[in-house]
């Protein structure tokens, strides 16, 4: 597990700027809106700068940034009195367009490989809860404990949720492969 330490005052040249793309991707996934995602990332860094003295040495700075971002987003949702749009069940809500890679701008830089499109499409069909845990684990490579901190839940919950998300993703990929095969046959 990577462990980062902040440089002391006056030496914080980067201050987690290397995570901006990852945070922006996560923000896009949560907000599904480019402008809101930008605001969320900007607010995340502002809060992190204010709270850097509270960051404990030995903690994971990347996870810390993700935690701040998610907490800000949750607070924003609360203030809007609509609540965060997290679905507990492994339903079909959302879609491929909810993934950061499927937003209009980021699509331009999306890896054009067929596999990547298929996987991203499948992830996009996962519930927000599953998408989130897949993103944090597979894309951002956070540990179970770090994910648990970000999601404010026990590590055991992360493990089980991740297991169910993967299982659902496998199923979706198999289904999508089957559909492609069928559509290929039909087109012949």
């Amino acid at each position, binding site marked *: 597990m990577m462990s980062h330490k902040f440089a002391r*005052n*006056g*030496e*914080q*040249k*980067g*201050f987690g*700027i290397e995570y*901006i*793309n*990852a*945070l*922006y*991707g996560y923000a*896009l996934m949560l907000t599904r809106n480019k402008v809101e995602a*930008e605001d969320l*990332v*900007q607010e995340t*860094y*502002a809060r992190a*700068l204010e709270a850097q003295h509270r960051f404990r040495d030995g903690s994971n700075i990347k996870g810390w940034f993700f935690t701040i971002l998610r907490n800000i987003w949750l607070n924003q949702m609360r203030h809007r009195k609509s609540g965060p749009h997290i679905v507990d069940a492994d339903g079909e809500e959302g879609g491929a367009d909810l*993934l*950061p*890679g*499927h937003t209009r701008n*980021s699509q331009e*830089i*999306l*890896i054009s*490989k067929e*596999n*990547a*499109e*298929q*996987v*991203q499409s499948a*992830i996009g069909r996962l519930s927000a809860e599953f998408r989130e845990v*897949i993103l944090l*684990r*597979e*894309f951002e490579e956070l*540990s*179970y404990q770090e994910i648990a901190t970000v999601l404010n839940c026990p590590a055991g919950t992360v*493990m089980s949720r*991740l*297991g169910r998300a*993967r299982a659902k*993703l*496998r199923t979706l990929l198999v289904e999508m492969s089957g559909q492609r095969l069928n559509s290929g046959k039909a087109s012949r």
Partner: protein
Amino acid sequence: MIKIHDDYGVMIQLLIDDELTGQEREDLISHINDCAGCQKVLEEAQAFSERVRSARPQVEAPAALREKILGNITNSSNRSVRAYWRPLAAAAMFLVAVGVVLSISYLRQESRAMSFVEAAIAEHRISSSDRSLDVESSSPEVVAAWFAQRVSFSFRMPNEGIATDDRAKYTLAGGRLVTFGGQPAALVEFRMQNNRITLLVTSDKLATATGGKVTLSGGLRFHASDLGELHVATWNNKDLTYALISAVAMGSSRSCSSCHRDSPAATTTMKSPT
């Protein structure tokens, strides 16, 4: 075959996710090495994980956002540096301010002291023939009582210790009301043979004894200096400032003999004048 390895399936995913450590990890790896079924599960899980990870969208934050955040980080860093230097800067500013105030105070004090001495000399130069004394008496009590009703400060004659010692060569002639700093001040005149000795007395709020050669005596600091043919001695005592002007040399304990007859105790038992 694989079914009986369900538990291992979960463990294998933990292994891929790097969540296993120590003996648990060693045991699982050892088992996988001996179990073809678990090897297959591991390979499939690894392939799936790699497939998902390879699909990671290459999301890039807008350049403007990155610049804005970097700017905020830089500003915050500068603020931190400023916050670090702020107490030092404040302390330096405070010291400078104190220095300026002390300098001004010192200069004003010097200025007031000089003007007090100048006033004392000017009054000294006015001869008795030009201007008579307002009160003529050789009694310190009479002179003191006269000034007590005319000045705003608590006038006292330096009439204790060597000043009133019966060995004094001078005699009190009287006093004249003068003005210093816009306030009434007392000019006391002594006579000694052919010399006149004058003593200008005012509140220490208007003048402070400073400069010259300093002599400590009886707990007082006497500041002696020569201005032309005149010798000046100034001192502070109990809210009052005195300036003694004479053509007779002063400034050291030995010069006491100029105005006082020699006595074994004269230079060693000088009492504090009041």
